[in-house]
C-alpha cells in the first residue's frame, strides 16, 4: 500500500512534468486522406492536407517527405526542397528521401555546393547520419547503462564491466549531441521560394545586386536585420535577400 502510493505520486509528478506532445497517431485518418488525394493526383489538395497536419503540430519526417513529393508534382521545386530538407533533419538516413532531394535539386537552375563541413563534423562524422532525437535517446540510454554499471560495481567490486570505455563512449555521445545542436543553430539552411531573386549587398532595395538566385537554391542563413536575411552560398558569395523570399 505504502509503495503503491509512492508509485502513484511519482506517476502524477511525471505527468505534470512532461507536457505531452501532439500525438501523430491522433491524425492518422487525416494522413490517410491526404495520401489518398495524392494517389488521385489531386496534388494541390493533398499538399494542403499535409500542411494542415503540420500546422496542427505534427512533426513527422515522412509527412514532410510526402509534402515535398506533392510540391514536386505541382512544379513548386523550392517548396519541395524546403520540405525535403525539413524531413532530412528527422529521418536523415532515408534513401528515398535522399533520392528525391537529389532529383529536386537537379531541377533547380543554380549550381550550388553544399556548405563545407567543419573540422568537428569531419571528426564526428556520424553526427549527420542521426537526428537530434536519436542522438539524445542514445546518450540517455548510455547514461543509464553507465550509472547502472557503477551501481553494480558498488555491490560487486570485482566486476569491472569496461567502466572507462563506457565513460568514454558516454562523453562522445554528449559531445555529438552538442555538435548536432550547434549545427542546427549555426547552419540554418534556407531555400529560395521566389522564382528569381536578386541578392543585394545590403539590407535595402537600392543597394547593389551582387548575384541572382532562382527557386530551389539552398543557402545558409548567417544573419537577420529589418526583414532581410543575410545568406551565404560559399566562402566568397554572400548577400542580403528579403525575408519573405526564403523558406526556412
Amino acid at each position, binding site marked *: 500500500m505504502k509503495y503503491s502510493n509512492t508509485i502513484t505520486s511519482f506517476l502524477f509528478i511525471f505527468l505534470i512534468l512532461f507536457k505531452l506532445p501532439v500525438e501523430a497517431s491522433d491524425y492518422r485518418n487525416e494522413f*490517410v486522406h491526404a495520401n489518398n488525394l495524392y494517389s488521385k493526383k489531386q496534388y494541390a489538395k493533398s499538399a494542403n492536407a499535409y500542411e494542415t497536419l503540420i500546422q496542427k503540430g505534427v512533426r513527422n519526417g515522412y509527412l514532410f517527405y510526402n509534402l515535398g513529393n506533392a510540391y514536386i508534382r505541382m512544379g513548386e521545386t523550392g517548396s519541395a526542397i524546403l520540405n525535403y530538407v525539413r524531413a532530412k533533419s528527422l529521418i536523415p538516413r532515408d534513401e528515398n528521401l535522399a533520392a528525391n532531394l537529389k532529383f529536386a535539386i537537379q531541377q533547380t537552375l543554380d549550381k550550388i555546393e553544399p556548405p563545407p563541413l567543419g573540422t568537428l563534423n569531419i571528426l564526428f562524422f556520424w553526427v549527420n547520419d542521426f*537526428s537530434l532525437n536519436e542522438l539524445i535517446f542514445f546518450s540517455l540510454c548510455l547514461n543509464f547503462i553507465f550509472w547502472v554499471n557503477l551501481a553494480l560495481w558498488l555491490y560487486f567490486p570485482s566486476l569491472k564491466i569496461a567502466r572507462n570505455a563506457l565513460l568514454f563512449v558516454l562523453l562522445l555521445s554528449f559531445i555529438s549531441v552538442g555538435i548536432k545542436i550547434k549545427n542546427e543553430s549555426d547552419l540554418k539552411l534556407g531555400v529560395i521560394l521566389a522564382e528569381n531573386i536578386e541578392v543585394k*549587398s545590403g539590407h535595402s532595395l537600392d543597394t547593389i545586386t551582387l548575384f541572382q538566385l532562382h527557386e530551389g537554391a539552398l543557402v545558409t542563413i548567417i544573419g537577420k536585420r529589418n526583414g532581410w536575411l543575410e545568406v551565404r552560398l560559399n566562402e566568397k558569395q554572400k548577400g542580403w535577400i528579403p525575408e519573405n523570399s526564403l523558406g526556412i
Partner: protein
Amino acid sequence: MILKKYTASLAILLSFLLTPALSTIGFGNNISVTATVDKTSLSIEDVLRLSIVIQGTQNTPPPELPSLPSFRVAAAGTSSSTQYINTQRSVSITHNYRLTPMKTGTVRIGPARVRINGDTYSTQPITIEIQKSSNNSRTAGKTAFVEAELSSKKGYIGEQLVYTFRLFHRIDAKNLNLQLPFDSKWFHKENLGEPKAYLKIINGIKYHVQELSMAIFPLMEGLITIPSSIIELDLLYKTQNRNRQDPFSQFFNDPFFGQRTQVQHKVLRSKSLEVNVLPLPKGAPKGFKNLIGEFKISSKLGKRNLEVGDTTTLTVTVSGRGDVKGVTIEEPDLKNHFKIYPDKPEVKQIVDKKQIRGEKVFKFALVPLVEGSKTLPQFILPYFDTNKGQYYIAKTQSITLDIKPSSTKEKLNLVKSNQQSLKKDKPEVQTLGKDILPIYTELDEFKNNDTYSLTFIGVTFSSPIILFFILLFLIKWKNRMKYDVAFYRRRNAFKNANQRLKDMKDHSKSKEFARQLSEILRGYIGDKLNLKGKAITAEEVEACLKESNYQPSQAEDTRKFLEKCETFQYARMNLGSTEELLDESVTLIKVLEKQ
C-alpha cells in the same frame, strides 16, 4: 623597492591592456554624426564620395543609409582616428561610400541613421545637383568616352546579332569595371573572343581604343531596348611641377623619376539601343527545331564493300553560320539490317568576322546483319536563313552499300564473335526517365518525431545519477551500522530505551521499578555517548552530557532524575508516583534525543 618595480610594470601592462578597451567605450555625451560629400554638383559621369563621420565613439554598427534610388551605392571602406589634445582624447570613425549617379536632376540624400547605445543619431540631409555630361559630342576632344553599336537594328528570334562596346581614352586608364546590361530573359549571349586594343585618330587626336564584342541571340519578339552599358574606370592624369624656373623641379620632372599622377574616377555610359525582334515566318518545314543561320550537312561512309559482321563508320557533318551546338540528328532507321552504335558528337566553334560558325560531327558505327544491297536513308536538316528570310532544308546524299555474305570460316568466327561481342558490347542499361520515389503510406511510420522536452531530458538524465547516489548512501550507512559500534549504539539508543520502557509497565508496582528506570536511562545515555552507561553515577552522567554539548539544564535534569530514582529504590512508592516517574523518564529521553 621590488614592490615598486612590480607596481610600475603592472601599471604599464594594464595601460596596454586597457587602451584598446577604452577606445571602444563610447562617450555618450559627446557623440555626433555628420555626413559630408566631396561635391554638391557633379556630372552624370562623375562619382560622389559620401562620408559619414561618427565622432565620440568607434564601437558602432555601420550607418543605415537612406533610400538612394538615384545612385548605385558601393562601400568604400572605413577609417578611424584617435586624437589627444591637451589630455583630452577624441575618437571618431568614418564610413565612406561611393555613389554613382544613375539619373540627372536635383537629388536629396536623406538623413543616414546610426544607433548607438539605444539612441538614434541622424545626419543632416544633403542636396546634390546632377548635370548632364559637360559635352556630349565625342569629337570635342574629351579625355575618355564610350560608344556601343549593334550589328543590325532588326533581327529574327534566335538570329545572331553583334553588340560592340568601345572605350576611347587619351590618357592611361586602370581599374576598368564594365557592366553589360543584357537581361537573360531577353537575350542569350556568347563571347566573341578577347577584347581588342588598338589606336585610332579622331579629329587629329590619338585615342587608345578597347573594343569588346558579344554575340547576342534574341529570345523574345518585339521592340527591345538594350539599356546603357556602364564602365567605371580611373583616369590617370600626369601632372608636372609648374615652377619651371626651379632647377630641382625640372630635374625631378624627368620621366626617369616618374611623374606625379592624379587619379579621377569616372563612370561612362553608352547610349541605349533598340532592336526590333521579328518572329519567324509561318510555314516552317516538318522537323524544324528552331535552327537559325545557314547550314550544310554531309555524310560519309568509311567502307562501302563489306561483309556481314564487318564494321563501318558513318560520319554526318553539320557546319555553317549559327549555333551548331543545339543541332541534333536522329539515329538512322536501319532496324533488322544493321546494328548501330552512336558515338558522342564532337563540336568545334569559331568566330569568323564576328560571326559564330561551327561544325558538329556525328559518328555511327554500323555492323551489317544481312547480306545484299542497302541504301542508307538521307539525313534532313531544316533551318531558317536570316539573310534570305526563308526556310531551307539541307540534305545528305544517299549512300548505297553492297554487303556480301561472310565466308564459312568467318561465319563460324562470326557466330563466335557475336557471342563475344554480346558479352563485350552489351549496352549498359540506359536511364530513360527520371522521377521521384513514391510517398509513404504505412501508418507505422506516422509517429511524432517531436524533439524531447528539456524537462524530460533533465529528469531522464538525472534520475539514474540520483538513484546511484541514494544507493551509495544506503550502502555506506549499512556498512557503518555493521562495523561502527558507536554509530550502531547511537542509532539504536532511543529505539532500545523506548522498547524497555514499554516492557516495564507491567512491573510498575515492583520495588525494582526505580532501579530499572535508572538503568534504562543510563543505558540510553551510554548508547548515545558510547559509554558503559550502567556503571556510571548520576554526577558522571551530568559531566558526560555537558562534555558532549548537551545543554547544562538537560544534564542537570538528567542527574536529578537519576538521583530521584536512587531515592525511590529505598523508599515506598505508590502507583501515582511510579506513573509520574515513568512519564518523566519518557519526556527526558525524548528531550535528550532531540538534542
